[in-house]
């Protein structure tokens, strides 16, 4: 399917199908919904970071005029969570609270003010427990445990995977370099606060409907059915268009379950809209991650082996954390050839808002470490960092040491584009003091190869209906979060059927109406829902073509579908309108509808842990950042970033550029200013749960972006398309860090690169110390025995070596 030649719609910079609704304010986000007799829900949140709940007294709240219902943990005792291995959340805390902001009670009242007033009347008695504000603390104190499951004490997950004889291979190197890095946590900060509205139709219907700003209606559907003990067939989840997600709306959330139960109890619609402060407590953002990396390289830059360790601060719950931990080790191998590779990853529970998937999910942290590490190696070897990378690229259509199947691979072209465009060779190590350039690259998955709960069903499904008036409706479970997924469906169907994309109606993200799509995460939607749409459209085309061919008396293979017509390719005047073709087919066969679905190819790795990392296709990006560093203040300004992204094929080039620019923006924020900061003294309180104090780039900080689209079509993508929503974020942080070093000769081996850190490094350097700010050690962690997997080069078959027990 990847080799199909696009022509009329694919690749064009068309308007999005929802563009007019968005610029007129007509788009209905979750909080824009209102129903007669609707109640308002508020959550009472924990004021303790870690404590047992001794008692909750809701009597006074229940007596308040206007209060219709109050819930506590006992009312919703069934646990849930996004991953089957960490069902560790409750809609409302049962016995203990695990972070400041953990919800303990829910109120439904006739107004938001009344619900808020009722919260003040709820008395919770806590018995405080020792709290942990860092993974180091959590490791040092196995008791009290934040959760009673995991890999011991307060360690949630430990991973130890070894591909090939890494120490022996590192022993063959001419240079062995070790570095430590830290990546601070940060959050998605979508402009829309999470909101949800629940409605209950009592028995005999017994049916719950939830409108919610979620990226994953399918998983919310599952969680609601589980916790509320309703048949899934009696639960309908409608994902409203998300006002930004970035991964922050990918978990099933407490508030969604709370309003659902409140609607069932009261028989009235119940709505909740989180405050901005509460959005910070939902979090699920970037894990703060400490990293250690040791790499052996030959004199020419060829890597012989790499050993990588990560320690993730998971916060209070599992969320996607097990996957996040694997992702901090998975993709080091898909950019540069790493013939032997050892990964050790650990995730600790702490008493902070739970971390999870943010744009790039677990890979921006190790990418930062790897790309700065390589910059240092290049300097030690006396090789230009761009040259070093070009020499070590993973070849296309190859299998990495950890069994990831690389298909199309345009990174070499990407590097050439940004090196040329930025005049790299004239600038690198040649600009005056205070100005510098830095280069970094990256890769990202176009969807995860495996679903969250393993099964053999498709990851994405599409139904397509052809109307006799010539309109087409596409139904798909995919969720529009601003990335353009609704438009992708219309463009692909329009391309195949030769009609105007604006003649297509798109119905998405409704578990009653649309076939399952797993959700808008892991950059999976264009590739997976796109392939499903392609299959459905091609099936419809076949049906229409048979009847059009008969009518026109031409062989089916001579027909072209274009410009709203079906015609003989050799005699364009001999044809029908698309609507006439539908009518012929409908008269002959009845209602015209088709389905399409997509399941990724199986991953080649067969070891435990091989489920994270495989993808149908990998995108590639290369980035050059130019910076200005004021040595007096330490302030870093980024005037320009050059970015080249291998997207396989653009379905809509303007949308692709939009994703690239948005990724650069978000990466710039992570590089320079964004951080989830906590007061670690007495209580683990979030320092800055507001849009003002959580610094993010405004128009005044945003850089110019010069974008190059590289199109190396991948056979697994629809028309060759790969992802673009996340990959281009990854190289920004290391490119900026490397540029700061080029500008002022100091290394800030952690993000964000704040003025304080730059100044500290400069002052240290001025005093003759190492000009570096960054972590100095990696704690001892009780790693399990490694799972040893022989590499493909060693003749491995993707399976681990059986452990021999003495």
């Amino acid at each position, binding site marked *: 399917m990847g080799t199909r030649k696009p022509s009329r719609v694919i690749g064009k910079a068309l308007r999005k199908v929802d563009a007019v609704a968005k610029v007129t304010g*007509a788009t209905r986000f979750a909080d824009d919904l209102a129903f007669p007799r609707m109640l308002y829900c508020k959550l009472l949140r924990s004021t303790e970071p870690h404590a047992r709940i001794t008692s909750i007294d809701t009597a006074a709240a229940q007596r308040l005029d206007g209060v219709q219902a109050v819930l506590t943990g006992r009312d919703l005792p069934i646990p849930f969570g996004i991953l089957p291995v960490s069902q560790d959340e409750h809609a409302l805390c049962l016995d203990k609270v695990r972070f400041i902001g953990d919800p303990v009670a829910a109120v439904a009242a006739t107004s938001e003010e009344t619900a808020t007033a009722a919260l003040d009347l709820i008395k919770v008695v806590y018995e405080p427990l020792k709290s942990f504000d860092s993974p180091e603390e959590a490791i040092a104190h196995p008791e009290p445990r934040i959760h009673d499951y995991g890999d011991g004490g307060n360690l949630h997950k430990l991973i130890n995977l070894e591909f090939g004889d890494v120490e022996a291979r590192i022993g063959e190197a001419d240079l062995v370099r070790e570095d430590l890095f830290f990546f601070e946590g940060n959050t998605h900060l979508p402009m829309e606060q999470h909101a949800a509205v629940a409605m209950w139709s009592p028995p005999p219907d017994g049916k719950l409907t939830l409108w919610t700003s979620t990226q994953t209606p399918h998983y919310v559907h599952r969680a609601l059915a589980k916790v509320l003990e309703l048949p899934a067939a009696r639960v309908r989840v409608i994902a409203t268009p998300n006002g930004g997600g970035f991964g922050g709306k990918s978990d099933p959330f407490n508030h969604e379950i709370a309003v659902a139960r409140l609607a069932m109890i009261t028989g009235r619609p119940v709505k909740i809209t989180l405050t901005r402060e509460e959005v910070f407590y939902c979090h699920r953002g970037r894990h703060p991650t400490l990293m250690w990396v040791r790499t052996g390289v030959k004199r020419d830059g060829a890597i012989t082996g790499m050993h990588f360790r990560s320690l993730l601060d998971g916060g209070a719950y599992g969320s996607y954390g097990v996957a996040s931990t694997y992702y901090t080790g998975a993709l080091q191998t898909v950019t540069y050839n790493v013939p032997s590779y050892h990964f050790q990853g650990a995730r600790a529970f702490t008493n902070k808002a739970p971390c999870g998937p943010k744009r790039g999910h677990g890979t921006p942290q190790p990418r930062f470490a790897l790309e700065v590490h390589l910059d240092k190696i290049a300097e030690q070897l006396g090789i230009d960092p761009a040259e070093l990378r070009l020499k070590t690229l993973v070849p296309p259509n190859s299998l990495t040491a950890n069994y990831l199947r690389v298909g199309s691979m345009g990174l070499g072209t990407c590097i050439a584009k940004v090196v040329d465009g930025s005049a790299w060779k004239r600038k690198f190590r040649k600009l005056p003091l205070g100005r510098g350039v830095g280069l970094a690259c990256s890769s990202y998955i176009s969807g995860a190869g495996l679903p969250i709960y393993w099964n053999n069903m498709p990851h994405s499904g599409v139904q397509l209906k052809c109307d006799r008036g010539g309109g087409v409706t596409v139904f798909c479970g995919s969720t529009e979060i601003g990335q353009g997924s609704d438009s992708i469906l219309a463009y692909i169907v329009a391309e195949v059927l030769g009609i105007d994309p604006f003649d297509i109606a798109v119905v998405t993200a409704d578990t009653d109406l649309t076939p399952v799509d797993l959700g808008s995460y892991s950059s999976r939607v264009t590739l997976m829902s796109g392939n499903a749409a392609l299959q459905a459209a091609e099936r419809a085309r076949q049906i229409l073509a048979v009847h059009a061919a008969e009518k026109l008396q031409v062989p089916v293979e001579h027909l072209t579908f274009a410009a709203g017509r079906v015609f003989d390719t050799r005699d364009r005047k001999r044809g029908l309108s698309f609507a006439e073709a539908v009518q012929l087919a409908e008269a002959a066969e009845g209602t015209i509808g088709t389905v399409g679905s997509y399941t990724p190819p199986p991953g080649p790795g067969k070891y435990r842990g091989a489920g994270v990392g495989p993808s149908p296709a990998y995108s590639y990006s290369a980035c050059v950042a130019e910076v200005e560093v004021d040595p007096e203040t330490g302030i870093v300004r980024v005037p320009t970033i050059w970015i080249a992204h291998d997207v396989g094929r653009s379905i809509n080039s303007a949308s692709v550029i939009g994703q690239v620019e948005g990724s650069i923006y978000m990466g710039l924020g992570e590089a320079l200013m964004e951080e989830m900061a906590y007061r670690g003294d007495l209580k683990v309180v979030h320092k800055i749960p507001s849009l003002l104090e959580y610094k993010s780039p405004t128009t005044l900080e945003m850089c110019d972006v010069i974008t190059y689209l590289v199109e190396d079509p991948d056979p697994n993508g629809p028309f060759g398309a790969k992802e673009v929503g996340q990959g281009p974020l990854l190289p920004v942080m290391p490119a900026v860090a490397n540029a700061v070093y080029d500008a002022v000769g100091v290394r800030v081996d952690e993000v964000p690169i704040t003025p304080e850190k730059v100044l500290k490094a400069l002052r240290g350097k001025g005093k003759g110390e190492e000009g570096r700010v960054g972590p100095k050690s990696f704690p001892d962690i009780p790693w399990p025995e490694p799972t040893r997997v022989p590499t493909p080069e060693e003749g491995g078959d993707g399976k681990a070596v059986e452990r021999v027990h003495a």
Partner: protein
Amino acid sequence: MSNESKVTISLSVNGEPAEVAFMPHKTLLEVLREDLGLTGTKHGCELGECGTCTVLLDGTPVLSCLVLGLACAGHAVRTVEGMAQGGKLHPLQETFADLGAAQCGYCTPAFLLAAEALLRDNPQPTRDEIKDALAGNLCRCTGYIKIYEAVELAAARMRGEIAEPARESLYGHT
């Protein structure tokens, strides 16, 4: 909840006279969304930090979450719902749609109104003037660049020039 009773005010909303009754503590944001049903105006913080609730009050951009509804009696409020006229998009709406300056679309109404006010006062703003005018509005999707380009393109068209998006904006650099 309290013993307050509703107040009624008259004002102009999108060029039309309106009367609206609401609890006197309500902000303009709440009055627009809850009492006038104009949900095109969004909110990101309700603390005056993000610019998402920007509307025009007598032509000047204000944060509707910080303005009391009562204070708008006798004044003119313009929201995104008032921009398209006679079934035709405003030039800024056209260019925002064409360039992809609206991704999730949540901050878009605020940017459109802030940009409209800018172009009324300064029909030919420089890129830096656009950045200054929009510095109080946060967008997490676009990186602002498509927004600048959309404002520049709309400005040119509103000056009567025949202008099209730059090729690099839509297809990238070569």
